[in-house]
Structure formats: structure tokens, C-alpha cells
């Protein structure tokens, strides 16, 4: 017999905060997850602030719903976001499958595919820094760095993430693809390597700083002291 709660948790682990590029399970955004004997799943999500951007928030709730509902054995899925200024619209919209525009009728005119694309591009740039850094530290110069292909990068979770991100947005991700590429998928020339790596590192610093601040804010928001005040 399968362990349904574990399967559901694994499914939630595939859901990313689009901006932070980290699973919501690692970010402590999953406040509760219950599975009934008949396969009904109820997931409660929470975020670092009451005013976290509703578009990002919507993506996470909708993705969590899709991931959980797709687990074999799940008969019904309910995902709700707590303590957010747009909780009602987001929860209602996700439950009704009405999309972001339908959930915020009159307030939103575009679906969120472009937003997701933007963040995947950013994640794919930051990943280049993470994977190239060890080679730089080994002393590889711009010529060698420009020639590196994904096949030459040791297998790791980070490499698999980079391939996934690139695949999702139509960038080269197979073994023969260069490690260092521009946003349009073209190869980074040797002369461009130093600045490209500067950009990739800045991108990584941006994402990781935001993730780290979010973790701090979540911790104080749900501290004992804050609960006593609420």
C-alpha cells in the first residue's frame, strides 16, 4: 500500500516559490497538510507577510493544488492560503479553477505565464553562477569557461535544476549545451565571460537575499510573541 501522506508531501515539494526558486516545503510555507482515509487532502499555506504579492501567491496556491490533485489516490484536494490580504480571492479562484484573471475580476488583465517565464529565466541565470563558481575557483580562464558544456559539469541537484529551468523556457539543456549562455540561449563568448559571471552572481545574490529575508520575516510573523498579539 502506498504511503499517501508521504506522496502528497513529495508532490508539495515540487511546488516552487517562483521568485525564490525554492520548494514551498523548504521555505516553511506549508503550515498544515492532512490526508483523510478516503484520500481527501487539505493543505494550508502561509507566507512571510500579509502583503506578499498576490500574483506570486496565486501561482503557489494554484501549483500546490495541481500537484496534490495529480497524486494517485487523492480523491479531493483543498488548498487554502491564510493571513493574506487577498486570501479570499485567491482561495476562491483556485478552488473554482477560474485562473488569476477570473479570481481578480476587474483588477487583473493578464495571466501569469509571463511572470513565471521571467522568474525561470532569472533562476537559470543564477544557476550558472552556482555551477561555474567551482571551475572559476579551480583557476579556469574565460576561454575554457566559455567552452564548458553541461556534460562536463559533475552531476548534482543544482545541475538537474538548471536543466529543468532551461527546458521549461526553451533554452538549450542537453549535454552538448554550453554552461554559460545568454538569456536568448546563445553561447557566451570568451571575452564576455567575466561580465556574464558578474551578472549571474548578482542574480544569485538577488534571489538568495530575498529568500533569506523572507525566512526571517516568516519566523517573526509566526513567533509566539506575534501569536500572543493577534
Amino acid at each position, binding site marked *: 500500500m502506498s504511503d499517501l501522506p508521504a506522496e502528497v508531501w513529495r508532490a508539495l515539494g515540487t511546488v516552487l516559490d517562483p521568485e525564490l526558486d525554492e520548494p514551498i516545503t523548504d521555505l516553511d510555507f506549508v503550515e498544515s497538510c492532512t490526508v483523510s482515509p478516503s484520500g481527501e487532502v487539505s493543505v494550508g499555506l502561509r507566507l512571510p507577510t500579509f502583503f506578499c504579492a498576490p500574483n506570486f501567491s496565486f501561482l503557489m496556491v494554484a501549483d500546490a493544488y495541481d500537484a496534490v490533485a495529480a497524486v494517485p489516490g487523492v480523491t479531493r484536494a483543498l488548498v487554502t492560503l491564510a493571513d493574506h490580504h487577498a486570501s479570499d480571492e485567491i482561495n476562491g479562484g483556485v478552488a473554482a479553477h477560474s485562473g488569476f484573471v477570473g479570481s481578480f475580476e476587474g483588477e*487583473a488583465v493578464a495571466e501569469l505565464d509571463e511572470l513565471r517565464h521571467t522568474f525561470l529565466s532569472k533562476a537559470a541565470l543564477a544557476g550558472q553562477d552556482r555551477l561555474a563558481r567551482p571551475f572559476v575557483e579551480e583557476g579556469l580562464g574565460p576561454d575554457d569557461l566559455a567552452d564548458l558544456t553541461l556534460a562536463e559539469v559533475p552531476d548534482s541537484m543544482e545541475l538537474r535544476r538548471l536543466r529543468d529551468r532551461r527546458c521549461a523556457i526553451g533554452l538549450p539543456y542537453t549535454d552538448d549545451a554550453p554552461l554559460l549562455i545568454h538569456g536568448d540561449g546563445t553561447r557566451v563568448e570568451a571575452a564576455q565571460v567575466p561580465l556574464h559571471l558578474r551578472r549571474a552572481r548578482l542574480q544569485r545574490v538577488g534571489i538568495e537575499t530575498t529568500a533569506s529575508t523572507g525566512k526571517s520575516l516568516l519566523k517573526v510573523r509566526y513567533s509566539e510573541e506575534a501569536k500572543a498579539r493577534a
Partner: protein
Amino acid sequence: MYEKDGEKYFVVDSHSHFWDASKENWVEGKEQFAKGWIDCFYGYHQLGPPETHWDWDHYLKPSPEDFERDMFVEGHVDYAIFQSTYLKEWYKDGFNTVDQNAALLERWGDKLIVNGRFDPREGDAGLRQLEADVEKYKHKGVKLYTAEWNGASRGYKLTDPECYEFLAAAQELGIKNIHVHKGPTIWPLDKDAFDVADVDHAATDFQGLNFIVEHVGLPRIEDFCFMAVQEPNVYAGLSVVVGGLMHARPKFFAKVMGELLFWVGEDKMLFGGDYNIWVPKWQVEGLVDWQMPDDDQFSDYPRLTTASKKKILGLNAAKLYDIPVPQELQLPTSADETMAPGEELVEDRAGAQA
């Protein structure tokens, strides 16, 4: 002024508030937003050192006495620049209006600069209000929230034709500093409220204005840096960077400072304490004591010298706002001057090591 180890620092806090988030000021029926807003600020507040934390009730509304003590008596601040934030949808008399700020002018007029605001969606009435405000308060700067709601509108861009009219009018009236809030925000919805592309265009089209991007575009510091490196009149407002990271996340503080020093440069970075999210004392003292860590991962970031700290803490902002600085505290800075943008960075010819 702050003095440490024989060095004297002239301190300009370029981003501060004097707010009223007290329960009496919450709009009926909108209490959850009014509370949600100040709770969000209180979350950031708690990223400062524990001994500087206020209790929540006190945090809702500082008194003029708090302000005087925190800024001028204990906070080492020589000049403070107030930024206005209205939020009248949730706060009856506004969260932090020009008038509230100006009430403090009567007490500390020689140490305070009150910035104004405008909203291009207010049309002719808004233009007339801006003229009246400048006449009354002699504004040299304004703070703009491009993501703020206004009726059916969910935000605007600096590049909207209406906004260009306001920017031109502001310049005509003698305003030269445009502080733009691009960062943690109120209602982005589908609009990308963090997008700095409009600052890029406006900065090119209004070379006579300075654009200070508050909170350095966090959480999109990369978009900000890629843009700022190309625009000589774009500045980094360090509010939230120092308060939110220096104590709570020192490693990331070092990296963000390193990136800003590299892409934007020490002449275009302005200290802001963001009172009363945090008090300035620990931020000023901490920044003066701070050094880039020696660890390898920080090795190719520029270092922060005593001179750089002096410029960031006050001299750059003093130049933008024509604040008189005593002769012995002055240092040359290229702030407020038209420099060639970082061409070597723009054109992929960086001297940086890989």
C-alpha cells in the same frame, strides 16, 4: 554628526517617516489592511537588533519626542529627509502625509527636509497641488509610488505621458530629486510593480533630474543594478538594505553592498534609516564599523573605505539636496554630476576577474 576613532561623519538620513498607524486612524471596514500594513512593517522592524525593538503599541505611533531623541539626540543624524506615504484607503488622515511631516518642520526646520509627492493620475488638480506644495514647503524632492492604487487604476509608469508632464512641471518648479519606490509593495497584482524599466527611460529623458531608487529595487536588485550602471543620474537608496540585512543577514548584507559598490559605485549610494521601521543609531554605528569580510567569496568586491562611508552616510545626499556641510567634513563626490555611465560594463568589456 558621528565621531569614531578620530573620524567625523556628517549624517544625512535620506529616507525617514513620521507615521500614524494608531487604531484611531484606521478606516472603518478596512482595519485588516491598516493592521496588515503596520504588522508588515513590524516584521521588518524585528530584523533589527533585539535591544532596539519597540513594543507593538508604541510602534503604531511615535511621538515628536521619540523622533527627536531617536534621530537627533541618539541617532547621530544631522539632516533627515522625510518621504510621504498617503495610504488614505486605510488610514483616515493618511499614514504619513506631507502635512504630518511638515508639523515637525516647525520644531526642527533647520534639520529637516520634507519631500512632496505627486500622482500623475490626478491631472490638472494634481499639478496645481504640486505647485502649491512646492510654494509652501520649497520641496527639492518627491517620493513616488508607481504601484499605488487610485480609483480604478492599479498603478502607473514613469513613462506614461501624464507622468512626463508632471516630471517636466516638477523640474520647472525646482525639484531635482525623484525618489521612486520600487520594492516591497502594496498591490502589484498583474502589474509588475518592481519593474524598473520605466526609471531607465525617464532617467534618459530627464537628465536634469536625479532618480533615487529606494530599497535598491529589492527584491529585484539585479534589474536595478543592470539599469543603474547605464544611467548617470540613477542612485541607490539604501533604506531597508542596512536596516533589514546588516544585523539579520550579515552575509547577504556584505554581498548586496559588494554588488552595489561594483555596479553603482560609492558616489551614488545614499544611506536611509527608514525611521521608524528602525532607529538610525545602530545603523549609522554599524555601517561605520563595518568591513567587507575577508572570506574568499567576497574577495573581488570593492572595499569600503572611511571616505566611502562618509559619502554614503551623508555627503552624497547633502550634495543632491544642497545641504551645507561644515568645511572640515567635506570630501569630493561625483554625486549630482553628469558622469559617463559605466561603458565598460555596458559593452561587455568589464575589467572584473572571472
